[in-house]
């Protein structure tokens, strides 16, 4: 069972990366995200008139997972439909939750690498001192954040069962993450409804936990991370529910697409 899960995860990864060349990998997976991180940190340095960009380096490093978890994973079901596998998945008696989660394994690993790279580059470019934090705790925060982001990506991918405009959905989601996770400005600036919505977003609590770590005030750190993991689990379950609905709808109406 576990072997099959990882085999499936590897096949998903292989399927997504097979057409990639080194140039594409360097430009899209390394160069572009790092330029984006630098860009938003520069806006912050000018608009907030500060030279201490620690919070923005953390926030934007976490947001680097968007590439893998939102744009990469978000097209999961669109890809399944495109390659004609959606029919087999819906008709198969195997566990769907395992199948769905398998899609998130490698994007989570890539997202972790992207966030670590972001933190390293950000600390070099904007002089953020990484030695002042407890690195194992930071690693746990990154791990929780990326698991949660991958589960959110899986949830977003389920919209691919209902919409043919996934480019629009994924781009919108990437902006929603920028606005509501506290990566670009404090969540407290948002109106009350926005602050509540922010707590439902992945990354918000992990970014807050990481900021606490850097501020030397780890009170509530573990609570934030538990909240982050709970958010991730909720999104994974929601994905399963949406998929179950799609499955039933497909079996009843004989259609594999809901639009």
């Amino acid at each position, binding site marked *: 069972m576990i072997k099959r899960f990882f085999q499936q995860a590897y096949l998903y990864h292989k399927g997504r990366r097979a057409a990639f060349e080194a*140039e*594409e990998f360097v*430009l*899209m997976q390394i*160069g*572009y995200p790092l*330029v*984006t991180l*630098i*860009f938003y940190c*520069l*806006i*912050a*340095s*000018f*608009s*907030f*008139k500060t030279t201490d960009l620690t919070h923005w380096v953390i926030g934007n490093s976490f947001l680097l997972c968007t590439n893998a978890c939102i744009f990469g994973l978000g097209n999961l079901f669109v890809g399944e439909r495109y390659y004609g596998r959606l029919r087999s998945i819906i008709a198969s008696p195997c566990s769907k939750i395992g199948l769905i989660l398998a899609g998130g394994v490698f994007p989570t690993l890539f997202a972790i690498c992207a966030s670590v790279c972001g933190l390293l580059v950000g600390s070099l470019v904007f002089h953020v001192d990484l030695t002042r934090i407890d690195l194992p705790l930071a690693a746990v925060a990154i791990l929780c954040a990326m698991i949660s982001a991958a589960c959110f990506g899986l949830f977003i991918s389920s919209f691919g069962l209902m919409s*043919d*405009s996934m*480019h*629009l959905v994924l*781009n*919108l989601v990437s*902006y*929603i993450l*920028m*606005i509501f996770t506290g990566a*670009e*400005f404090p969540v407290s*600036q*948002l109106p009350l409804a926005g602050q509540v919505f922010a707590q439902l977003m992945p990354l918000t609590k992990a970014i807050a936990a990481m900021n606490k770590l850097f501020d030397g005030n780890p009170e509530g750190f573990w609570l934030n991370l538990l909240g982050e993991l709970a958010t991730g689990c909720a999104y994974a379950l929601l994905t399963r529910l949406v998929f179950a609905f799609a499955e039933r709808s497909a079996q009843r109406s004989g259609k594999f697409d809901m639009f």
Partner: protein
Amino acid sequence: MNFKVLFSTMKVQMKQSFARPMFRFCLLVNPVVNTILLYEMYRNSGSDNFMAYVVLGAGLMALWGCICFSSAGDINRERYSGTLALIYAAPAGFPAIILGKIIGNTLMSLVTLCISLITAVVLFRVPLHLENPLLFLVALLSAIVTFITISSVIACLLTLSRKTELYMNCLEIPIILLCGFVFPVSVLPNAVQFASRLLSPTYAVELLRMSVNGCEDPALFREKLLMLFLLTLIYAVLSAFLYKKIDRRVRIAATLEVS
């Protein structure tokens, strides 16, 4: 140049572009989310005029996004539709058709500036001032011409590649960063500023910002306008030169659709 071809291409291009969900995102959603994001980032900057960096910045970011994801990608779309060779060999002339597409896209993309303005006024009720409307009009017209010219250079270069999607993704943020769409170029390190000065949108943005904030030094405005004119002229010559080179290469190798 056949103006009938130019106008009919513009019309068709506007309809085709608007039919694509990604373009609709760039045109309608992007300016709204960018305005929200930039407003929250600039909210505590101490500035009392949000026109220069929030409205103009968000509008220009969205406008550039439209250019990247449409003007630059149109050649690839024609390639995938199997119509590239037809429009290339048509007696109407490939440059007229491509120019029509670019002008159509750029003019339609100006809507982003209006959407950004409406978002800022309706959502945030922020104080907005336009100190010198006449100079703003001059700067805006110059910006439109320079965006059309730079788009034609990019479109020419991308004729030779099938990785258009990759390059247009990689062009978006770096140009916004280098040309100072949302912060002054002076924030950047000196070496990077040198690269910024080679890009005509840098001057277009500075002129727009000067007209918004009130032009205290008309000589400086004229100097920047002259630089913008010179660079636009260089881009136009470069575009014509590239077209001739590419045309020769494509006719000799017969690789237009598979390059």
